């Protein structure tokens, strides 16, 4: 434009500034603090700690002080923690024994294998189902028939089908997480707005490009939500499988200790499951946040 009437300019001047302000609201005065520093100076850590202390106190009261009938067989927190961190544990399981880590290691390995398999199969299948209607029409009825079958109902078949206990347990764990991964990946594609496909098609994208550049990144947030859920299911199924068929692992340890009347070990194994379960879903969340930067920044 060669002779832009000056009437336009004032509007140009004021507006981008106002827009910039909305785009970067916190750029001003304060030096930005990291999320950790923010958390530490907030009341949250204190509340967290008092929540945990309250839980331990209640546990202590119920099992050791009041000895209510419902709780009188359970070990109290002092006994459990004493055993857990003992160099010379009464029942042979503590942080200083090799067996403890063998149980953890084997359970983690089984979950990892099953989860890897479920992801490697579930994500591509789910994405394909969301993307290609004919493929979905083939697979959906079967999926909807198999998905609601409780994982425990698979136990006999799993034992019949697979040679050895190890593969049966991994198979059961795989089943637990597979459907959640599949379903969420499928929903992920369904959630992508049609206009992205249209825009890409107009810009000249081929089918295979549509898959790589639209389906894949667009479904990513749902896929990672699915992976977190499926990790939870994996641990759930693993413990059931180990209780029924295991010779090692945290689920087996719980059941075995029950039969051998080594009650503190039950509690130790349960808390250990809690910790490794949380850690594994934290890892998935971190990987997800790393891969889906565009979504994280939206917050």
């Amino acid at each position: 434009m060669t002779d832009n009437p000056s009437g336009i300019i004032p509007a140009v001047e004021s507006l981008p500034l106002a827009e910039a302000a909305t785009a970067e609201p916190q750029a001003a005065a304060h030096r930005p603090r990291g999320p950790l520093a923010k958390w530490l100076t907030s009341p949250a850590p204190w509340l967290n700690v008092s929540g945990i202390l309250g839980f331990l106190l209640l546990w202590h009261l119920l099992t050791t002080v009041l000895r209510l009938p419902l709780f009188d067989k359970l070990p109290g927190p002092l006994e459990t923690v004493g055993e857990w961190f003992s160099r010379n544990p009464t029942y042979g399981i503590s942080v200083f024994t090799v067996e403890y880590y063998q149980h953890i290691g084997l359970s983690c390995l089984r979950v990892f294998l099953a989860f890897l398999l479920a992801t490697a199969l579930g994500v591509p299948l789910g994405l394909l189902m969301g993307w290609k209607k004919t493929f979905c029409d083939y697979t959906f009825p079967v999926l909807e028939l198999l998905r609601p079958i409780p994982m425990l109902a698979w136990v006999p078949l799993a034992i019949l089908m697979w040679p050895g206990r190890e593969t049966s347990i991994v198979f059961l764990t795989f089943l637990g997480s597979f459907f959640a991964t599949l379903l969420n990946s499928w929903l992920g594609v369904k959630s992508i707005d049609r206009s992205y496909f249209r825009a890409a098609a107009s810009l000249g994208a081929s089918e295979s490009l549509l898959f790589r550049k639209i389906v894949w990144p667009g479904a990513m947030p749902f896929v990672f939500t699915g992976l977190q859920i499926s990790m939870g299911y994996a641990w759930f199924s693993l413990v059931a499988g180990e209780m029924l068929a295991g010779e090692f692992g945290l689920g087996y340890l719980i059941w075995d200790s029950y039969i051998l009347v080594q009650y503190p070990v039950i509690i130790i194994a349960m808390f250990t499951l809690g910790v490794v379960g949380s850690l594994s879903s934290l890892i998935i969340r971190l990987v997800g946040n790393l891969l889906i930067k565009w979504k994280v920044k939206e917050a």
Partner: protein
Amino acid sequence: MEIPSARPGEALPTNNPEPPAQSFPDNDPAPGRIEVESLYKSYETESGFREVIKDLSLSVTEGQVTAIMGPSGCGKSTLINLLAGYEKPNGGKISIDQKPVTGAGPDRLVVFQETALFPWLTTFENVAYGPKIRRELKGEKLDSVIMSLLRTVGLEDFRDKYPSQLSGGMQRRAELVRALVNRPKVMLLDEPFRGLDAMTRSLMRDYYLDLFERHKGTQVFVTSELDEGLLIADRLAIVTNRPGRIKKILDVALPRPRDESLRGSPEYLSLKAEALELLHEEALKSFKAGAVNSADFVGAYAAMG
């Protein structure tokens, strides 16, 4: 003169130090001509068979802005989808430079009613998407073309931001540029500035006019704001209540470059009065037919007139 690019927190320079934005490395392609002949489009809905467009014929002249206006629900977005090749008509013909339209393609680019910037790509990556996947431009050349366009719309400092980090107005500008960088024969814009506040909207219109007057392509521009339509258009096509067809085409023979000051001129006012009358007629019909938001529409036009 170029619209100066404003950086956040920085006053506009009085004499622009930037070299004038050189538009494209090669010449812009010849703008395309669209012919639409007795177009027909219907949908099967739950409430039955619905004719959306019926016997719509229209020539969109090359190198001009054809604005499309009409009551809400009259089939404007449907027309855009058909022109873009996203949907197939049930009857009639659409051709661009005598070639029938069979599907979507980079010769006809769409700026959507809702933003369709890919949320997982940055501003720059979004704009680069078309040329990259078609392998037309790359490396430094692509970089300089895109940056010069982003500069024209004041987005050069936002090249590495994701769409969710841009304001509504910035998203619309990024989307205009994403379409324009592909040098389409035709641009299809479906109420591209809907939902923006009045200030941003008039600013966007000025950016758009600047880009258009620089690059002269064929434009089909759907709008629901009469003033916007009159200020940008060479021709204003008024669509009837559903099923939509062209009721009348007004020639908007106002001088370019245009700006707000035109709004007081007698030619402008008489054009506006004529358009208002036609639109009002159709809005009333749609109101009688019981369309959902036609009441607002009639109200809005009554207020404007």
